[in-house]
């Protein structure tokens, strides 16, 4: 009994520390020279900001809703809980005022899309970064 509690606690601790310390990076195409700060990234992923500082169109890409990175990104960058974010988008979807970013499943897919399209902005775990993309912000 005692050992199972210990076991559970250590699992919880590992999970907890993972979600707290995993660093998220926001990535763009290497040719994208726009200045991006936390506020502008937030607005791009909420559909409020539609172009980069150089005038190019923004296409934001989300990861799967249920994934830890998406929840983490919502909390750290969008400053919303998963349900607040869902409420925010349902308000726009059902009034014809906006569509949430499309979703992909893995860091590798985000990298692939960002590397091939200068309009795309995405987020991945810091540990997945490759030289095919440019890091625009760390959270």
């Amino acid at each position, binding site marked *: 009994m005692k050992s199972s509690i210990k076991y559970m606690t250590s699992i919880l601790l590992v999970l907890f520390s993972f979600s707290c310390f995993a660093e998220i990076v926001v990535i763009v195409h290497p040719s994208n020279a726009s200045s991006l700060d936390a*506020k502008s990234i937030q*607005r791009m992923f909420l559909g*409020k*900001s*539609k*172009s980069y500082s150089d005038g190019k*169109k923004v296409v934001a890409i989300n990861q799967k*809703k*249920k994934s830890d990175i998406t929840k983490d990104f919502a909390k750290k960058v969008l*400053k919303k*809980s*998963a*349900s*607040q974010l*869902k*409420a*925010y988008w*349902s*308000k726009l*979807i*059902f*009034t*014809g*005022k906006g569509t949430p970013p499309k979703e992909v499943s893995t860091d590798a897919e985000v990298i692939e899309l960002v590397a091939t399209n200068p309009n795309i902005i995405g987020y991945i775990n810091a540990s997945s970064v490759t030289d095919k993309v440019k890091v625009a912000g760390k959270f």
Partner: protein
Amino acid sequence: MKNLLRIPYFFIYLFFISTTTFADIQFSGFASINAGKVLSGTGVPHYDVEPTFLADYPLVSAYGEEVDFKPETLMGIQIKSDLTEGLSVTAQIVARGANDFDATFEWLYASYEVNDSWTIQAGKKRLPLFYYSDFFDVGYAYVWMRPPADNYTWQIFNYTGVNALYTGEVGDWSISGNIYGGEEDDPNNKLLGDFFFFETTREVWTNIIGGVFQMSKDWFELRVTHMMFDNERFRSGERVLFSGKMQQESKFYGVAANFDFGELFILTEVNRLDTEDVFDTRMISAGYRMDTITPFIAYSEFETDDVVDGENHDTTSIGLRWDFHDSAAFKIQYDKVKDNSFELAVAGDSKSLTIGIDVVF
């Protein structure tokens, strides 16, 4: 003749092309399963109205003393077909318990994105009178069981016409707005027929023209709106004259300001309808997010200016929203309504309890 026959084939051909090759069709939806009852109420004895809680005016969601699931239970399905190059068509089919679950197209419009800032929409849409009008049916999108009833009282809530939508940024401010125009002809208006005139009432709003301006930054959001329209009315087929005239010119004004500090949020809205009489409505609400639990309070009132014993009622509410699931929220709300008019009493005083679940999918 031959040419005429060819046209339908052409459309059928187009239809197949679009569904099989180009069209990206997305389905989404929302539902609310609500139940409630009046705990105690006066009703309006001189109009033979039993104890009633009118939770929603335009749709006439009325609870009585027995537990009832029908008044506010609803389900909506949205179908959006993206025809590429900025063009899309959207339909929203809603079935409401208040209308015996008859499914109707409440929204049906084509949308064209002219550029990043402007979108033109044409068709049937919700009339954006109030802050919550547009997403009134999507309970998941707000904290209460329903937007405060005293504020959301107007008998017409959809229109058919054209809407130009703008979104943009000025410095750190997000700006959005729209300009719209159209009309609505409701052959059997439920609110006016069931609660005011007790006879079939045709309500017509023409020459609707209005605008909404919205700005937001960090924790602050402001919405200002104005609309003008001409009102015509027929009771049991007979035209109603407004001070001897066939139609009355009416004006609507609204201001909403919201303050969201993360955990604490405060929502306010004031509106005025200037028609044969001047009606003022206002509401204030506050809530506090504690992880998945959000308790809230609200107060709203409706009054008729400068009229002795004009329509006048207010509601004090307290409740709780619990986000127990990623796509669903449980809500419970207690409402205390005071109906202060005799001649224009609507549903009398009442205390009632409603609970429900809102989902989006």
